[in-house]
């Protein structure tokens, strides 16, 4: 792999304020919205080479490169950088922490200007559309009015899809990866258990735990939620390969209720490291955003939006819809539904189920055929723009 993009820093911008508040899908208003974001590469003089990276449930703005002093690069470094599929020699890549997040963008842990205290659960419920509107406000400040592409996995793919539908003519290509247009009952059930784990933690305190200090947070609940979620991100095969039935730090089982199998130790570690970098309320809000996501609820609207895109200057959105054969969180059937509905509405859609062993998390791995498909699709968008 060529060298990455080197040192990067997260930046901040205030994108909504008293004069220009954000009106959410629910009708609620936010009068101060700050966004944490990173950019890689250079915006072309005509502003046409921007690629927006939408992150998933637990992601953040730091998608690529290294923060000063960090050993590990950003969460999607393997796909972003010079010579990589999101080629920063050619594209201006933007990634922002989502609205409702806990990594620098306004969310339930931010101060409510009305009370001077953290919002907690008084933060309004969000929709994918609200996340997209916040991204768009950031882009306006950066001088971008049309995207070459919006790309994302899981919740990120939902944002790319919603963006293309809500703003015909604004997104050249939408890359919707390991995503869903409508969660299944099983998906919602897993989310529900994760939320229960958080809300039943005695330290949850109705979401008002911010002033209780580091030790007073609902870490047990959040860790448990993450453990449940993490199981659904892996495949049975990847867990078998990674852990099998091996015993942690021993050959013989210890026969008890403490952590004994390697997979238990791994899950405990995942849960523990998660609470150090994530906020329980954000987890509640983001899982709810996904549960309620249903952009195809009105089929007639999809047809109108696609037609409006094609009539717009610069044309409508081309879609690349990808799934992974080992993903049982958002199985290939979810991706097929997205492809079918968009095609039925007259949009050009390329669809592929990729083979990869990592379950839902496959979209984060440098699977060669996956990266080649993404690179080819973006190359084509760039070539079409040059013409």
């Amino acid at each position: 792999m060529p060298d990455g993009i080197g040192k990067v820093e997260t930046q901040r911008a205030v994108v909504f304020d008293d004069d220009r508040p954000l009106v959410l899908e629910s009708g609620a208003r936010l009068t101060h919205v700050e966004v944490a974001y990173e950019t890689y590469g250079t915006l072309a003089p005509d502003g046409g080479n921007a690629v927006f990276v939408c992150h998933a449930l637990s992601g953040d703005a730091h998608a690529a490169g290294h923060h000063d002093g960090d050993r590990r690069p950003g969460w999607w470094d393997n796909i972003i950088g010079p010579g990589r599929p999101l080629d920063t020699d050619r594209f201006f890549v933007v990634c922002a922490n989502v609205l409702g997040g806990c990594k620098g963008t306004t969310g339930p842990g931010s101060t409510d200007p009305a009370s001077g205290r953290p919002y907690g659960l008084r933060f309004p419920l969000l929709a994918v559309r609200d996340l997209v509107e916040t991204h768009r406000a950031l882009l306006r400040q950066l001088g971008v009015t049309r995207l070459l592409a919006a790309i994302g996995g899981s919740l990120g793919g939902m944002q790319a899809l919603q963006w293309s539908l809500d703003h015909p003519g604004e997104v050249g290509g939408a890359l919707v990866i390991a995503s869903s247009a409508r969660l299944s009952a099983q998906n919602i059930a897993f989310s529900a258990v994760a939320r229960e784990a958080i809300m039943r933690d005695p330290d949850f305190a109705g979401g008002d735990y911010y002033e209780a200090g580091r030790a007073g947070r609902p870490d047990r609940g959040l860790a448990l939620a993450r453990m449940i979620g993490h199981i659904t991100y892996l495949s049975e095969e990847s867990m078998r390969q990674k852990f099998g039935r091996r015993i942690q730090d021993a050959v013989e089982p210890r026969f008890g209720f403490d952590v004994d199998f390697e997979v238990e130790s791994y899950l405990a570690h995942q849960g523990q490291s998660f609470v150090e970098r994530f906020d329980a309320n954000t987890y509640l809000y983001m899982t709810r955003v996904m549960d309620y996501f249903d952009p195809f609820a009105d089929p007639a609207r999809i047809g109108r939006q696609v037609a409006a895109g094609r009539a717009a200057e610069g044309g409508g959105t081309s879609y690349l819809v990808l799934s992974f054969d080992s993903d049982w969180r958002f199985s290939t059937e979810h991706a097929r539904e997205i492809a079918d509905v968009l095609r039925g509405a007259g949009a050009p859609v390329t669809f592929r189920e990729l083979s990869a062993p990592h379950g839902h998390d496959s979209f984060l791995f440098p699977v060669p055929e996956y990266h080649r498909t993404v690179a080819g699709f973006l190359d084509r968008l760039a070539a079409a723009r040059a013409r």
Partner: protein
Amino acid sequence: MRADLDVVAALVGHGVRVVDLGCGDGALLEALIARQACEGLGVERDDERFHACVARGVPVTHGDLEAELPRLADGAFDCAVLSLTLQAAQRPVDVLREMRRVAPRRVVSLPNFAHWRIRFDLARTGRMPISPALPYQWYETPNIHLCTLRDFEATVAEVGMRIGRRVLLDAAGRPAARGARLAPNALAARAVYVLEG
């Protein structure tokens, strides 16, 4: 673009929704979309050819056409294309029936196993014919259901379809000389059919 695809493109027509089953590198669809204002979708299982479609900007589903066809909605297209692919299908008759379900017009091209050169080679050598059009040894050929034009036309009648048009082709894929009409099943190397009904 291959000469026979020019013939296929002309038969597909202008401004139609078309699905190309086994679309290869997407050259036909690219031409149909760019020059004939069609809305197109390809189905292709080969990785390299799939990437060629992506590079051309042709919408494509990666997968086997026999698995993907049943997933397409009834009447989702105006025209379904199957060019030089029927002989490689596991269940050719099912493919024809599914094509009827998804599109009122079908354009199907196929190699003619009764072409005089194949007959001659088989008679002369006593071995399975190998030619530029059929370049495989018997044990590795993907062409598991070869047929003659007469076979195909009989099968089309059996499944209850009409032959709306037939264009006879030579070995290079160009329209065959007029003389081929005297004995199509012996003189045409390939043919393209428009199937209706």
